[in-house]
């Protein structure tokens, strides 16, 4: 990378233009669904789970809200502010579940407005990542983070909020164990997966009695926002039975997780948890039927490791290719073609890509195996490197 001039103004302008275009012109129904539920926050509804349990049959959109409460409060707060900025049109659009919602004259404006918080989280992650590497590696890291297709796809095109808990997990890397644990707990109140990272933090906490405080801090960060909801059956049913329990925890992942925990124990004297966080979050992609946005969980850690180990780029590219192949071959209109519907609403009528592929089961099987093998390759080659550092 040496020899490339760093022009901050050109970098910033390119980054902003790219994000503005993708955020405004791409649409996935999930963002509408999440903000539709979040819009109830400004009407004073705090327990959205119970509200939906009793009222969703008479609402125009009858799905449940499956995320922990901080997500509802966060999205609800932003939706409240957005509806002040936009006027009543935003609420009307969020409540419009007819075919006409793609023809709304302010569609691009609404999409951009609703995705604005993700810009801030995205750039804050970059700031944290830069602080974790040596000066010569900072510019390549910035390019890698700002222009990688995964975050452009999952954060700006699909419009998922996973960048918020991801920011907290990266921030946890930069903090002392107790505040880091609290932050991971808090992140788990947005999406449950950071709970998987806490045992690694405990394992690496020195001296060991301090691990007790670390555990309490994690419990406090996770439990405090959940406390007012625990009595609610609707909350327990929708949140605790969703992603972490139902989709991530499976025999393959459990074995992998225990193996990683063992490897982490072996290098427990190292305070650096980048590899551990990277491996667990990547493991979720390797062993479960994942959603595209789950890749954002592992992305910051992948970037950190790749910048330290540039020889692993070819393996990373295979992981990246197989990740997108798995996603684009899902039988879901909105993983690819449907995202373009704000520009061309008729694209919703084209069948998903997978329906055009003969012997799709075999293709899917091969692509998933490629992801698994290349992902495990990335895990163990990076472990070889970090364990060498620990020994020296």
């Amino acid at each position, binding site marked *: *990378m*040496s*020899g*490339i001039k*760093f022009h*901050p103004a*050109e*970098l*910033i*302008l*390119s*980054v*902003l*233009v*790219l994000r*503005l*275009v*993708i955020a*405004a012109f791409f649409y996935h129904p999930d963002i509408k669904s999440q903000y539709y539920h979040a819009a109830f926050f400004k009407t004073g509804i705090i327990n959205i789970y119970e509200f939906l349990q009793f009222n969703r049959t008479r609402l125009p959109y009858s799905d449940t809200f499956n995320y922990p409460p901080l997500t509802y409060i966060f999205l609800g707060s932003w939706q409240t502010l957005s509806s002040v900025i*936009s006027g009543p049109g935003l609420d009307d659009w969020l409540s419009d579940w*007819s*075919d006409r919602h793609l*023809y709304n*004259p*302010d*569609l*691009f*404006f609404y999409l*951009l*407005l609703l995705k*604005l918080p993700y*810009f*801030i989280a995205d*750039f*804050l992650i*970059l*700031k944290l990542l*830069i*602080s974790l590497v040596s*000066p*010569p590696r*900072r*510019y390549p890291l*910035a*390019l890698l983070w*700002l*222009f990688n297709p995964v975050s*452009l796809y999952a954060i700006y095109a699909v419009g998922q909020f996973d960048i918020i808990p991801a920011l907290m997990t990266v921030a946890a890397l930069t903090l002392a164990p107790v505040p880091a644990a609290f932050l991971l707990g808090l992140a788990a109140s947005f999406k449950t997966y950071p709970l998987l990272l806490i045992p690694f933090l405990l394992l690496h906490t020195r001296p060991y009695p301090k691990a007790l405080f670390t555990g309490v801090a994690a419990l406090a960060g996770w439990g405090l926002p959940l406390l007012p909801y625990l009595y609610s059956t609707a909350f327990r049913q929708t949140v605790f039975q969703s992603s972490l329990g139902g989709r991530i925890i499976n025999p393959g992942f459990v074995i992998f997780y225990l193996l990683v925990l063992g490897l982490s124990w072996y290098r427990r004297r190292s305070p650096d948890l980048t590899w551990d966080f990277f491996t667990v979050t990547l493991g979720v992609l390797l062993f479960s039927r994942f959603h595209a946005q789950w890749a954002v969980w592992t992305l910051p850690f992948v970037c950190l490791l790749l910048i330290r180990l540039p020889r692993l780029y070819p393996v990373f590219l295979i992981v990246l290719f197989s990740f997108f192949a798995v996603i684009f071959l899902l039988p879901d209109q909105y993983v690819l*073609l449907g995202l*373009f519907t704000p*520009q*061309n*609403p*008729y*694209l919703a*009528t*084209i069948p998903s890509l997978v329906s055009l592929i003969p012997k799709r089961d075999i293709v899917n099987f091969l692509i998933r195996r490629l992801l698994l093998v290349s992902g495990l390759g990335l895990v163990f080659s990076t472990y070889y490197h970090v364990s060498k550092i620990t020994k020296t």
Partner: protein
Amino acid sequence: MYQKLLKPEIITVLYLLSVLLFLAVITCFGLRRIPDSAQHRGDTITSLHRGQDIIQEVVPRNNGLNTVLIFFKNPNLGNTDRLIFSLSLPGGAELRHIEISGRNIGDGETVRFQFPPVPDSAGITYLLTISTPDTSPGTPYPLSVAFSSVDAYLPGRVISPAGMTGDLSFQLFYAPVSRGELVADLWHLFLPRVLSLHLFLTTAFVLIFGFRFLRFCISRIPEDR
């Protein structure tokens, strides 16, 4: 060479061009049908059997009618009889005829009847007929379709079953005859939305605030490397 490609502005242009190219390709070569008109309400269910055909009048808005979507229920996937779809003129001339088996119809499935485009279909009244001549009236597993309980489709009415006041739930599609007209149509939909004042102000805010914020975030990248 590759170092030149790694310039931020080059990467940005490559991303945007590839997105634009993809959109152009799928719009020009991928689109086989475009929504025409529809009756989405389906609050009542009516079963099909020999002697009880469903006949609905429809009036497409565009030329090139080539697809009709109809919602079916087939509880326990129990019905495996022949299902006949036909499109005809009120005078009786059958224009299109499709036969499928109940085996291919799920419970709560929208079935697509696709046929060669009817060239001058705009504004003409057609009859959609669905029949199951092999299903006896007493069968425990009839196929059924959804209807609105009220007259929800003003251009046409139900001919059969007699006495039905609502309309069949259906969607019509047409084949884009001219790609140029299609692109012009999309451009007219796109342009006013891009020129919105709200979007302009939000973009300006993001550029101004984002510029300062991102400069703060990358302040630790050494200028001189």
